[in-house]
């Protein structure tokens, strides 16, 4: 008698999870999209850079199908009226082409209008419920930071366009793509302006290039930016001779290297650019006081500068023009001021 009662209870206990689970199994058909989850590779990104073909005054016709910067095919049925950008870079891109975003991530501080958008948390783990709650008709996600969220975002049933910037070329691609997707000529205008700015810089650069080291991190623990990083690419275009060129990317993030202090100082950089990633003492302040750096030309000539973390690190892309302007002035003040 007792035993049978116990087994009845067990059956009840076993049936509940089974019920819940069978409910889960029924939903399989909703989820086939995952097979095509895109993977951002260097190839996919550069491949996409040739596809967007919108000219400045060309009207976009909908439905529009484009290849985004994560290499995915995106279909947008009608001109988006409610846009949700979900990373610092994508929020800036949307505002830079004259549109507004319903959402932003917590760390976004530019442009100021974006601060009134709904804060959906961090770019790495955006709150998808708040995103869905904003009822956008286009989600603009970050091809550098957020590729792994594709399945989750696609489940919302809203078109997701991936843009982002790992280098200057990507910025042009992203501007053209977002301009085309949102039917605004402003994307092409911005991209063309950047190309013109770059041509102007190239025509003025001296033959003799400045030896530059770009540091990123905290005064006690920093990494050196390689030419393959975003800031390294802008510095290259601004005429920097990066002392870390050719080093392997061995830092926790791609495009950066952990170099010993001896190596850096031994290269005798003429200019030090520093991005301090934490509040408190900056890298440049700590270098000025460090006897190890005392003989380095950049320190003796007082050419150690902090550069803006938002422009060069946190939100790579939309403000590339401003970034080039800052870098050329720091590297060649006689020519560009």
């Amino acid at each position, binding site marked *: 008698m007792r035993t049978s009662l116990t087994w009845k209870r067990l059956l009840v206990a076993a049936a509940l*999870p089974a019920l819940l689970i069978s409910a889960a199994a029924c939903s399989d058909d909703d989820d086939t999209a995952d097979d095509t989850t895109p993977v951002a590779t260097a190839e996919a990104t550069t491949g996409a850079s040739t596809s967007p073909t919108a000219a400045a005054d060309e009207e976009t016709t909908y439905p529009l199908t484009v290849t985004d910067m994560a290499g995915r095919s995106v279909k947008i049925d009608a001109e988006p009226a409610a846009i949700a950008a979900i990373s610092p870079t994508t929020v800036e891109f949307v505002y830079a082409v004259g549109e507004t975003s319903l959402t932003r991530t917590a760390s976004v501080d530019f442009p100021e209008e974006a601060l009134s958008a709904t804060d959906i948390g961090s770019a790495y783990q955006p709150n998808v419920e708040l995103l869905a709650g904003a009822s956008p008709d286009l989600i603009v996600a970050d091809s550098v930071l957020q590729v792994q969220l594709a399945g989750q975002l696609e489940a919302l049933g809203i078109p997701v366009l991936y843009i982002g910037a790992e280098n200057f070329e990507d910025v042009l691609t992203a501007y053209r793509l977002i301009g085309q997707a949102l039917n605004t000529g402003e994307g092409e205008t911005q991209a063309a302006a950047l190309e013109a700015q770059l041509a102007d810089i190239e025509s003025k650069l001296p033959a003799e290039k400045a030896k530059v080291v770009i540091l990123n991190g905290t005064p006690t623990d920093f990494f050196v930016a390689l030419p393959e990083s975003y800031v390294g690419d802008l510095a290259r275009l601004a005429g920097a001779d990066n002392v870390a060129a050719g080093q392997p*990317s061995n830092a926790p993030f791609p495009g950066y290297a952990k170099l010993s202090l001896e190596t850096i100082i031994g290269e005798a950089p003429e200019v030090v650019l520093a991005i301090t990633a934490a509040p408190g003492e900056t890298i440049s302040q700590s270098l000025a006081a460090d006897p190890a750096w005392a003989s380095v030309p950049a320190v003796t000539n007082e050419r150690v500068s902090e550069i803006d973390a938002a422009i060069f690190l946190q939100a790579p892309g939309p403000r590339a023009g401003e970034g080039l302007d800052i870098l050329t002035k720091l590297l060649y003040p006689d020519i560009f001021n």
Partner: protein
Amino acid sequence: MQQHATTPTATPSRSNSGREVAVWGFAVLLLVLAVFAALSFGATTLSPLQVIDGLLDNGTTLDRVVVWEIRLPRVLLAVVVGASLAVAGALLQGVTRNPLADPTVLGITAGGALAVSIAIKISADIGPAWLTPIAFLGTFLAAALVYGMSWRGGVSPVRLALSGVAVAALLTAGINAMLVTSNLSTQSALSWLAGGLFGRGWDDLQVTWPYAVVGITAAMLLARNMNILALGDEPAQSLGLSVERTRVFAVATAALLAGASVAAAGMVAFVGLVIPHICRTFIGDDHRKLIPLSALLGASLVVYADLFARVIVAPSEIPLGIVTAVVGAPFLLYLVRAKT
């Protein structure tokens, strides 16, 4: 430290059965409430009617998306994770006759996490379909290592617990080594190591639940032998039980369950430790009741903990592992003080 030695079939008297019914009713009610609460609360609070509409697809599109696409798969995964961990803990505590045993303490979860870290490092976009068997391989190898290390013509429960602690430390060091030598994109993929269900969807649930069902079923089939094993090795042997075989099956089942939970949620500590204890105080040492009750209460704990993790610092969230540790660590301290 524990009353395992009592003959389980003799423990409950007839007067206890009313209390038992109450316990089961309470456990089921707790889980149903947990699931309903987790479906209702979040960035937007939904009324019970909206939740039901969302579940039945009669609601507005937004309710449907929030309830069906975002919350439900995650809640069901929390059920799977909690039930798996709690049952694994119950098995391991039985095998080691040690109230401090659980998959985390014995290094089994760390084995799964290390295996998954290595897999992610090799290929960052490895899908959930592969992660689960890889996690299981890791938990199984770690369990085999712990078992092998404590073998000396037989496994003493104390040696098993001690080698588990040593293996846990070693494997955790391995995970840290993987973390510091990986690049940023891999690190974000590894963020689940802290324990969490962020972004988990139907595809994750689909590959995880069969492991949990097989594991919990196996645990139920082992329950009678676990009761005999609790009598002590020699009495069990004299009753005709193959002691080592029971132990090996139990540890392997625990590894299977821990593997399912690691693949789904990373390292979620203390569930396997705390839940079987609570269940024992309610229902005694009979594994035929202890295992299903642990599954129910473990599921409730993780569903509530995940809800808490989602809403406490909204719109961001904290790792689930932190919440279960905050609940579990004080309980462990209480155990240490109350039972010595």
